[in-house]
């Protein structure tokens, strides 16, 4: 009876919703993109980053993914652009830009 969240939407007939509106799955909210809430967008300046990681725990949205002991670029699907990471970066490795737009990836990161 595990739930596939992708099969539930506002057009789903009542017979196909989950019993008691329970979810028989964890972490389905990943499918919900909060990135479009942004009015400002953080930009990760990798060359300035010293991987101190102070930005990672201050993010309310878990939108600074990690790979081992290193932070990666922002998860723009979910980042709401609050700017807390920017404010707490000691090295100026995060910049805030106006608007919701995802910054273009630079070649070296790929």
């Amino acid at each position, binding site marked *: *009876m595990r739930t596939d969240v992708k099969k539930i939407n*506002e057009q789903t007939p009542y017979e196909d919703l989950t*019993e*008691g*509106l329970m979810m*028989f*799955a964890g972490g389905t909210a990943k499918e919900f993109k909060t990135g479009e809430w942004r009015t400002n967008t953080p930009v990760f300046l990798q060359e300035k980053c010293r991987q101190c990681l102070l930005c990672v725990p201050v993010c309310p949205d878990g939108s600074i993914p990690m790979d081992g002991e290193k932070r990666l670029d922002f998860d723009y699907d979910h980042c709401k652009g609050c700017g807390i990471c920017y404010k707490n970066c000691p090295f100026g490795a995060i910049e805030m830009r106006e608007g919701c737009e995802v910054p273009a990836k630079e070649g070296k990161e790929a």
Partner: protein
Amino acid sequence: MSQEPIRERMSGNEAVAEAIRQVNPDVMPAFPITPSTEIPQMVSSFIAGGKVDTEFIPVESEHSAMSAAIGSESAGARTMTATSSAGLALMWEELLLAASNRLPIVLTLVNRTLSGPININCDHSDGMGARDTGWIQIYAENNQEVYDNYIQAFPIAEDARVHLPVMICQDGFITSHAVENINLLPDQPVKDFVGTYEPEEFLLNPGKPIAVGPYSISAYAMEAKRAQAEAMENAAEVILEVAKRFEEMSGRSYGFFESYRMEDADYCMLIMGSAAGTAKQAVDEMREEGKKVGVLKLRVFRPFPEKQIAEALKNCKAVAIMDRCESYNGNCGPLGSEVTAGLYRNKVNLEAVCYTYGLAGRDFTTTHVKEIFGALQSLVEEGKKIPHNQYIGLRTKK
């Protein structure tokens, strides 16, 4: 009958406690309130004496009792509790959640009037106040029925077509405390009948997390309520299936209601709970005098067996609908409202007079029953006008 009965004498509360001992549920959160207090007391002694391995949670209120029951049942444990009156009222918010979360919790309700004034005696205002909370409600006439109903509660609640909580009701003091003869079933057949609780999805299922109790936007909430209503509709057939299985084990037969001497009855008293015994006694005496009277004792109030009631009454000339509860709507009690609506919808046209009786433990006697049947008869046969909403046993200047 497949099993030799064990003849005993005990009160309704003792009968429920005995059923609990036999079922051996996983968890019981409870808070004492007269007249249901004995039940958690007896379960606590069973635990202390090693007769059950139920975990008892001595919560600090009935609201917390039902809250903990919701937590426990969601976690995958077979859970039950007991309460009365204000205790049930304090649970009200949680009763709705137990049902909407589709949790097969079993609650034994020892019916007692709601305040005010505060009073500890029986009426049905507590159970009737919870009638629209989404719980299955089954009422008993005596200790035997409450024992039998309790054992049937778990298979009804836990059936995949249902997944709803069940309230097993008995009349405070009258049934809960009076000691009567009873036929108990041996332990093993009861355990086999109830089976073990194996939910498919629950909180404590490693690697298979679930989430209970979402915020729902309007796009889903109405659909969820409809699905819940459908589960209640499904409960009707499940209640009858379980009753049939129970009869095979015990030899005792149950349905939505009991029709007592109704075959050719012109006049019927529709009643719930212990007062049905009084009504039956009066009917026996009146039948001796050649009066065509009968009793329809309602057992299942939720789901409400409207069609079946209409069918049972269709050949009667008049029915007295007996409410042990005031609903303050200016017309009649809840049973009166639902039965008359059901008769109308099923196009059964007969005189229906609503009576309020027995509030806060007020006596109800065979004399009252005979007076009521007399009034029905004079209404039908002499065209005598009588009020369609009356109190029985009330002191008045009129």
